[in-house]
């Protein structure tokens, strides 16, 4: 294990976060507050409880997931795309590092940042609504698992992307819609039959549902299914990353 290399990459990635601290931390806090004002206060006042949970509290896990997914993807994809773009990737490719070490460093840094942001949002949310977390350990597990999985996904996008447009494409066209339609702001039980069935093909539903269960002890789908789907997506991403490195796809000509 080239731990010096992992540490070197991790540090550089974290330093990048620190350079953009304002943007990294302040913007999720602001957007979360806005969501609370709009959804929690304005709309939530007209919606009664969902499954015994006040609407304001109900949307907290969904909001955290929303940021967690977008942050994980954007951090990890940018982290690997940028050296490709400016050409500094040559050093990484010529260094005595294994693929596993590269992934640990980049994905680890991206996941660290998004977990931190998730916790900041949680803290912000607790200023707006009284929160009680039923299963804190599970909550952290889901937080970390999701951050790692989507950082891996972002890493794949960063390697695949050949322009800044492509880098934005997947998050914009796929991830954001899936997250919004994944039950961030509502329970999928509230949807009419056919839509509910369609929704079950959305992987984000399982993430949000499992995460929400850790908060309130109730969920749209069972914990086992949530966990299983999250892990399945994680392993799918690991498989793709493995293939990328084996073939040198878009890294080595």
């Amino acid at each position, binding site marked *: 294990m*080239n731990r*010096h*290399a992992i*540490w*070197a*990459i991790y*540090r*550089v990635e974290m*330093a*990048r976060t620190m*350079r953009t601290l304002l943007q990294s931390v302040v913007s999720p806090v602001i957007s979360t507050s806005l969501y609370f004002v709009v959804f929690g206060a304005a709309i939530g006042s007209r919606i009664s409880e969902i499954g015994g949970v006040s609407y304001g509290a109900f949307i907290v896990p969904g909001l955290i997931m929303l940021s967690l997914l977008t942050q994980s993807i954007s951090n990890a994809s940018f982290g690997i795309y940028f050296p490709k773009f*400016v*050409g*500094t990737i*040559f*050093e*990484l*490719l*010529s*260094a*005595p*590092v*294994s693929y596993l070490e590269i992934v640990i460093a980049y994905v680890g840094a991206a996941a660290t940042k998004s977990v931190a942001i998730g916790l900041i949002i949680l803290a912000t949310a607790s200023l707006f609504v009284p929160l009680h977390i039923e299963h804190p350990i599970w909550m952290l597990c889901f937080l970390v698992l999701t951050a790692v999985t989507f950082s891996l996904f972002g890493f794949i996008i960063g390697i695949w992307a050949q322009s800044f447009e492509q880098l934005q494409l997947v998050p914009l066209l796929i991830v954001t819609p899936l997250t919004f339609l994944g039950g961030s702001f509502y329970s999928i039980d509230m949807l009419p039959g056919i839509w509910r069935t369609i929704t079950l093909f959305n992987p984000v539903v399982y993430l949000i549902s499992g995460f929400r269960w850790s908060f309130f002890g109730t969920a749209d789908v069972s914990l086992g299914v949530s966990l299983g789907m999250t892990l399945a997506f994680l392993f799918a991403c690991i498989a793709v990353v493995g293939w990328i490195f084996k073939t*040198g796809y878009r890294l*080595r*000509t």
Partner: protein
Amino acid sequence: MTLPPANRHSGPDKEIHSKSKAVPMQPIISISGVSKIYASGFNALKAVNLEIRRGEIFALLGPNGAGKTTLISIVCGIVNRSGGTVTVDGHDISTDYRAARSLIGLVPQELTVEAFETVRATLNFSRGLFGKPPNPELVDKILKDLSLWDKRDAKVTTLSGGMKRRVMIGKALAHEPQILFLDEPTAGVDVELRQDMWAMVRRLRESGVTIILTTHYIEEAEEMADRVGVINHGEIVLVEDKTELMRKLGRKVMRLELRQKLDAIPAALSKYALELAKDGGSLTYTYDNQSERPGVASLLRDLEAAGVQFRDLDTENSSLEEIFVNLVRHS
């Protein structure tokens, strides 16, 4: 921190040492049958064989698009080869990539640096990436050697092009490589930096580092290299000791058109290897660059003393450049 062990033991004295035991020295890089066909279908390298000796300065010469960067990139692990094998100090670059790569430092042709980091941070990063524990003293020393000390805490973006190149060299040296690749190190570099760079290259070679540089400038190869390889259209056209090459091919020829025809070369001029043309109308003096033979000035003095007068004089200088141009044209 000390240099890696092989640094201390390799170099010229080791060569003598191994010769005395009659053990042929293992080349530090051995490239055999390496080919490269890019995804576009372009065949950039055609079964290249090349061995780099331990401790030497090897110059790879070739015109644009010859395949120099491709070859270096394959050895360094940046480009996948289409065929052949490469070993670095006995380590296969695929199966034993860790050992192979940790011996190599690369200064690429293009200036690509982490723009938002400080100079010192980028050097520390490179060192870590190559698996070495932090060593502030060594990094400081490299910064001083490369005249980057004043800029150590400056962001790389704020540096000039020449300074950035120094940073790239510093990054390559930060992990104490035993082999240094310099891909066109003097492109866009002023005289001062070039001299600094060559001084540094010589120092590195003295400490046992093997250096492979590519260049378009023949004078550079002539000045720096122990051996010269010429590559063209993805093929190695020639590999030769530089002095040998200069001796074999690097002749100077001076022709003197005489005012009066001579029947024979005057005895007073017998110490010069002169040739008299058949018609007796011209004298040709051939000498090579390296030799200690009597110089042109004394020949001209002796000619005057012997009363031989000439109408015209011209010299032909077959430099490495000429050799190179001929080779490339004929290959």
